[in-house]
């Protein structure tokens, strides 16, 4: 039957549950129902095919034959299929360099998918090779012999023990001596053979049962060569079992016959604990074993039980799958984060060892004996420059082990600052305590060192920074910054600009960079200042006080118009920089425990960031993109004077440690290749489409892994759809549960700009601005953070004492919905937005967000529902000047409430908020306008009245997370002292005792003006809610519930209120809870559910009722579906995005 309304799945990603390496360059992966093929050399997927419709692939087994065609059995759940894999690269090789067409492959189905009665845990192609027999191990400990070419069941054998298995592994490849090692729910490994002895019932007896594990068995493997078995378990251990067989004939090559198994003995030789959670899979290699687990770690062990390597890089929870190539050169792992990563197995002695060497200063004269280095730097990979306490400047060639004394000057005793020029030429600059600057420059191929002196300050030179090969920045006493032009050829130094660094504790520039006519400086107090070049003005034009905390800014770099800063607060920050003005876009914390960040480097042309710093007693180089430490060198702790240099993947690190200089040579830990990018480490809870066309789309996803990610879904050069992360946003401290989008006031035709609200656990709400540059890049800005009931981001004890009523920090935001006010009332400015939120403490909370001021103003709230509120949805009723916004909210009690928001109330709130307060800062507590209840069916009305009274006591103060951008005018007379900044901060958040008092007095003037319409549509939680405008005053509202029911109601909303016209429902719309509903048109509706079906419904409205009819039903290969979003592409085509344990997109035609 031809379906008019077709739902077509076009992309899916999720946990990687099966992996298999083919030859040297191909990895096959099972992701949901799809078999992906990856080319290792390209780090790309070159093919993707649906092989197990509606099932999840759990295993791929190869049929070893000598032809170019590889044959595989692919199985998952209760189904198996056999496919062929033809590779163009192998058949059409002509010696030339490979291009993309060489990697084109075709996968064809050899045997149709067959479903069996029980779960399939393992499969093996049996010998002889022409037999076309496949053995399958089933879920209740039975084995099936299946003729895959003729789709015929040959034999089924069951074991006497028919308990539930958690894994099974075939040993041997001939039916006559086939052994099954079955891992049971009862913590045992049972060995039995389909050809073994049968009991009276016809079931086969067990040969051996291996006991010892304390939990269910998740994986078993056997090595013929070692005659060893290993098992992984729920008890987090790996056990190694040594078998000995009576028959001493050479068992290594051939298969071990059944009798030998019966007469064998075994001992458990090792119990290995290395994973910090459950172990999912383990594999025995020639001289190593590899295991993966729930801790997202892959461990490589030797047979003595030592861990040789630990591969970490997968995000979030669990590595699910594992494969090792035939030559045992690499491990491929597939994670719950949907990524596929390849790790090299070469031993540590060959890779990433480091050699440390302590340099001895020359001992020529007695004077030098008690001398020691003060500062150290690398001039090139091989040349170290050292300044000593006694004023010696040494150049040491590491390779040639040669020393050169460049200077011996008592003027530079005890105190010298040194900086090495970044450009090619060898150039060193020194500054001393008397304000003298000396530049050393090497000239010629046989370098001759020249030097020249300048007196630049009347006092100590505090710091020197090279900004380029010809630009030099110095700081002198009293914050005197001088910017110099240096001419290499004439050795001429010319003063270009002078500035004043505002007062702070250690008043010198700690990091600096030039960007588009501005000088950006960081100081030791964590503040970043911007100065304009060519300006008369010596003070900063803009400052970000203490943005990097007390310990200072360590590095500033510019890349592609953005400014990146790092500090010892463990964070790096990204700023945009236009017309001399910087705007903070984002703050990134590298990882917990890594606070001392000293340097940031852009790597891979902006695709990766390298972070250098110290973590406890080690020097660390972290790759953000790989989510991995590339280096970790134990050096005893943080060192103030250090330098490093690369040569290929060789890395040299020098540092000064008390009285010595240490050189450390190592190689980068480039042991990871990402074949497929990661999505989220935990379940995706919400998804929104930012942009979509027929080629692909850009989506925002929020996850339980506490991050929000912006990703593009599009085809790669092989024509395979893939997901690419554009931005990974951290900032949430708990899981993200809801996203809402609203057009930004900066939105224009050529630059799509969107506001994104994200909220979740721990009462936290963030506001971002996303500007799409093109399909490959996006600019994100964090505009604001709000926490329910918290007055200040970093609350001072004083403030906490004042705060009489603390809200419960365990409150979770469950859902968000936003609307740009100007889209309803054209006289509102474009930067105002209404945001509705559903909260787990039974409140609905409404906010007004001003994009201009980057502030979120609490507007209204109510606990009417008395149950956890699950959904909110803003309904725009547009009728000229009478336009109104209605907000629908739904809770776990199955009720849907309507809230009305008037223009007048918003106006007043905005006005109140923008009125100047005591401190002439923008701050005012908004009084909460409580919602009155107009409801007939509430049987506990009085109780609610009481609650409302109580609410009026809940003085919630708006959080005021503002960027500390101070215009030059403001800053002129304000001292940038520590105290000064604190008071500044306080002003920002507007909290003072007087303020608090005035707020509480205002709480009494609460109006109760709004009325509510209430309807109960579901037995329990409402997890899907949407509306569409029908005609005139009529709207359709759809809700999907935990009770499997789908309800569509037609309501009339006008000045008289809300009235239900007709209702229609479909009680058993899905077999499990509905988690998303969306209208495509007034007559078409889609719903998704945990039952993993996407259903398209037609909505027929008659006078008396609404009829829902299922038009089409599509299985979605994403478990635990949490949300959907859809967008109309054209009159006939919609794109739908579904989130859950992964992400899927579908297209719906023929509407």
């Amino acid at each position: 039957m031809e379906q008019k309304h077709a739902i077509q799945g076009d992309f899916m990603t999720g946990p990687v549950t099966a992996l298999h390496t083919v030859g040297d360059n191909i990895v096959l992966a099972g992701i949901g129902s799809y078999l992906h093929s990856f080319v290792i050399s390209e780090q790309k997927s070159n093919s993707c095919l649906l092989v197990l419709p509606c099932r999840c692939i759990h295993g791929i087994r190869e049929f070893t034959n000598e032809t170019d065609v590889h044959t595989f059995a692919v199985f998952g759940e209760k189904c198996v299929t056999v496919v062929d894999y033809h590779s163009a690269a192998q058949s059409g090789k002509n010696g030339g360099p490979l291009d993309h067409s060489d990697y084109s492959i075709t996968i064809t189905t050899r045997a149709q998918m067959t479903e069996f009665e029980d779960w399939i845990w393992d499969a093996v192609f049996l010998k002889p090779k022409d037999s076309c027999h496949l053995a399958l191990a089933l879920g209740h400990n039975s084995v099936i012999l299946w003729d895959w070419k003729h789709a015929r069941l040959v034999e089924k054998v069951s074991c006497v023990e028919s308990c539930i298995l958690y894994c099974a592994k075939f040993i041997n490849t001939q039916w006559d001596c086939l052994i099954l090692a079955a891992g049971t729910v009862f913590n045992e490994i049972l060995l039995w053979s389909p050809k073994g002895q049968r009991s009276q019932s016809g079931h086969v007896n067990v040969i051996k049962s291996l006991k010892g594990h304390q939990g269910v068995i998740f994986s078993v493997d056997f090595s013929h060569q070692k005659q060893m078995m290993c098992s992984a378990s729920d008890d987090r251990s790996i056990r190694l079992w040594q078998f000995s067989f009576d028959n001493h004939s050479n068992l290594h090559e051939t298969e071990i016959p059944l009798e030998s198994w019966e007469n064998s003995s075994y001992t458990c030789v090792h119990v290995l604990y290395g994973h910090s959670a459950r172990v999912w899979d383990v594999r025995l290699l020639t001289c190593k074993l590899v295991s993966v687990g729930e801790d997202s770690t892959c461990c490589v062990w030797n047979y003595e039980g030592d861990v040789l390597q630990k591969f970490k890089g997968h995000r979030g929870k669990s590595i699910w799958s594992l494969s090792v190539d035939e030559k045992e050169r690499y491990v491929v792992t597939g994670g719950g984060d949907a990524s596929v990563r390849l790790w090299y197995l070469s031993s540590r002695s060959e890779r990433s060892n480091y050699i440390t060497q302590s340099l001895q200063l020359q001992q020529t004269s007695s004077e030098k004996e008690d001398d020691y280095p003060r500062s150290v730097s690398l001039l090139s990979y091989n040349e170290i420059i050292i300044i000593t306490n006694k004023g010696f400047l040494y150049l040491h060639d590491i390779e040639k082990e040669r020393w050169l004394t460049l200077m011996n000057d008592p003027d530079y005793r005890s105190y010298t600052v040194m900086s090495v020029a970044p450009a090619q030429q060898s150039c060193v600059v020194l500054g001393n305590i008397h304000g003298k600057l000396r530049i050393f420059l090497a000239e010629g191929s046989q370098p001759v060192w020249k030097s020249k002196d300048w007196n630049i300050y009347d006092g100590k030179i505090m710091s020197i920074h090279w900004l380029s090969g010809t630009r030099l920045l110095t700081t002198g006493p009293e914050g005197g910054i001088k910017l110099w032009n240096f001419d290499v050829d004439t050795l001429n130094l010319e003063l270009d600009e002078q500035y004043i660094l505002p007062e702070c504790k250690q008043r010198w520039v700690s990091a600096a960079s030039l960007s588009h006519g501005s000088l950006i400086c960081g100081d030791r107090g964590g503040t970043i200042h911007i100065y304009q070049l060519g300006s008369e003005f010596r003070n900063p034009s803009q400052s970000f006080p203490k943005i990097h905390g007390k310990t200072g800014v360590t590095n500033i770099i510019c890349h592609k118009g953005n400014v990146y800063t790092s500090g010892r607060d463990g964070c790096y920050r990204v700023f945009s920089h236009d017309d001399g003005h910087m705007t903070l876009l984002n703050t990134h914390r590298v990882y917990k425990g890594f606070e001392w960040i000293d340097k940031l480097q852009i790597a891979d042309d902006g695709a990766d960031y390298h972070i250098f710093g110290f973590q406890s007693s080690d020097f660390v180089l972290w790759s953000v993109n790989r989510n991995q430490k590339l280096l970790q060198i134990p050096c005893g702790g943080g060192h103030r004077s250090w330098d490093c240099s690369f040569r290929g993947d060789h890395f040299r690190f020098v540092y000064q440690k008390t009285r010595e200089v240490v050189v450390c040579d190592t190689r980068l830990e480039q042991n990871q290749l990402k074949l497929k990018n990661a999505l989220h480490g935990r379940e995706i809870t919400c998804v929104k489409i930012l942009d979509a066309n027929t080629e692909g789309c850009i989506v925002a996803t929020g996850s339980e892994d506490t991050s929000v990610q912006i990703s593009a879904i599009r085809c790669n050069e092989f024509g395979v759809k893939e997901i690419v992360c554009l931005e990974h946003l951290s900032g949430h401290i708990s899981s993200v549960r809801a996203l809402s989008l609203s057009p930004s006031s900066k939105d224009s035709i050529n630059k799509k700009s969107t506001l994104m609200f994200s909220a979740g656990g721990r009462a936290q709400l963030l506001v971002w601005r996303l500007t799409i540059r093109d399909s490959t890049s996006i600019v994100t800005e964090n505009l604001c953070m709000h926490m329910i009931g918290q007055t200040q981001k970093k609350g001072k004890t004083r403030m906490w004492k004042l705060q009489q009523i603390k809200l419960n920090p365990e409150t979770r935001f469950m859902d968000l919905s936003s609307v740009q006010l100007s889209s309803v009332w054209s006289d509102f400015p474009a930067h105002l937005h209404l945001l509705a939120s559903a909260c787990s403490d039974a409140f609905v909370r409404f906010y007004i967000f001003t994009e201009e001021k980057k502030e979120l103003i609490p507007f209204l709230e109510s606990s009417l529902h008395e149950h956890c509120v699950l959904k909110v949805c803003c309904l725009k009723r547009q009728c000229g000047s009478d336009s109104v916004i209605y907000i629908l909210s739904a809770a776990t009690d199955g009720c849907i409430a309507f809230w009305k928001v008037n223009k007048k109330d918003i106006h007043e709130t905005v006005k109140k908020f923008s009125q100047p307060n005591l401190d002439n800062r923008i701050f005012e507590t908004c009084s909460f306008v409580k919602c009155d209840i107009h409801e007939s069916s509430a049987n506990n009305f009085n109780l609610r009245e009481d609650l409302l009274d109580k609410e009026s006591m809940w003085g919630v103060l708006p959080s005021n997370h503002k960027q500390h951008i101070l215009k030059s005018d403001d800053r002129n007379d304000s001292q940038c002292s520590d105290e000064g900044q604190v008071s500044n901060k306080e002003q920002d958040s507007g909290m003072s005792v007087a303020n608090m008092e005035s707020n509480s007095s205002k709480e009494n003037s609460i109006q109760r003006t709004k009325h509510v319409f209430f309807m109960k549509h579901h037995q329990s939680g409402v997890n899907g809610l949407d509306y569409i405008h029908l005609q005139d005053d009529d709207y359709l509202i759809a809700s999907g519930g935990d009770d499997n029911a789908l309800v569509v109601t037609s309501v009339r909303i006008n000045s008289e209120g809300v009235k239900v016209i007709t209702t229609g429902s479909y009680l058993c719309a899905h077999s499990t809870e509905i988690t998303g509903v969306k209208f495509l048109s007034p007559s078409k509706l889609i719903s998704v559910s945990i039952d993993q079906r996407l259903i398209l419904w037609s909505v027929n409205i008659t006078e008396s009722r609404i009829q829902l009819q299922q038009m089409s039903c599509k299985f979605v290969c994403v478990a635990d579906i949490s949300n959907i979003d859809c967008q109309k592409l054209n009159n006939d085509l919609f794109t739908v995005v579904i989130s859950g344990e992964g992400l899927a997109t579908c297209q719906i035609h023929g509407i």
Partner: protein
Amino acid sequence: MGKSSKDKRDVYYRLAKEEGWRARSAFKLLQINEDFNLFEGVKKVVDLCAAPGSWSQVLARKLRGGDVKNDDVKIVAVDLQAMAPIPGVIQLQGDITKKSTAQEIISHFEGEKADLVVCDGAPDVTGLHDIDEYIQAQLLLAALNITTHVLRTGGTFVAKIFRGKDVTLLYSQLRIFFPLVAIFKPRSSRNSSIEAFVVCQNYSPPAGYIPNMSNPLLDHKYDTDYNNLEGPNRVIVPFLACGDLSGFDSDRTYPLNLEDGKDYVYHPPTQGPIKPPYEEACQLRKTDQLAKVVDPKKASSESSDKSKGDTTTKGSSIDSLPDCLDEDLEFDPSEQDVLEDLTELQIG
């Protein structure tokens, strides 16, 4: 995060401790009973997969009404693990897939069969939904299989079910044995959890059905007429949520002061976890004894010749530091809603 934070997040966890239940799941059975009157006229009950014993506690309190010596009422609790004794409950350590277990249950009823069989068993979930749902379905079918041996005609069977993608297959299986099947979600079970309960009433096995333990009962398959995978035909049994909305909402975040004038007091869990499989691993982890990456030179006990006098060669210990990255994600309990529901107080 203080010890009371879980009390704030999960009101039923807190109430269970306050009322002396071994797990919050006690409320689930109480709430099922409120709607179905499960215990009316019931004298003989079997509690399958009983550990840690909260359902047996409910059965004992409700059926015996505090009278431990009431001989009319017999409660048999079966589990593979041993559990702390409950007055008035006969404990039986055994495997529910064994015929001997069924026989032993019946022997406690003096040859008669049970009026009610309940099963709150669930596996430790792995996180792969298809596997977890499959294992739970097999557990339910194993419970159903032993139930066909011990339940009287007309009796009631209540079991935990995961509402997953293939749940309709289980429904159709249950409908063969029970004309009345309903899916019930108590208020104490969270909105976000896939857990629910099947209440199967009026046990009436098909004519000529002979209970058989030697082969496992397997779940149904999709077919074209009765139960389609993607088409319009599906057996979807009616869903019922607990009718009483005035009780506590398991999804709601409550303040610690639930009632005015009554101060919050922290209660420790009624009973600590029974020996979990990961006990030893956790102990090793706590004492920092999990295997770390070793120095390859030391591992192979080779003393390498040093080319330079003061040069030391070491294997870098890149991964030997505590897992600073994983720690946060793994132990932030706010992320573990589903898990908590399934493992009850054992996570504690």
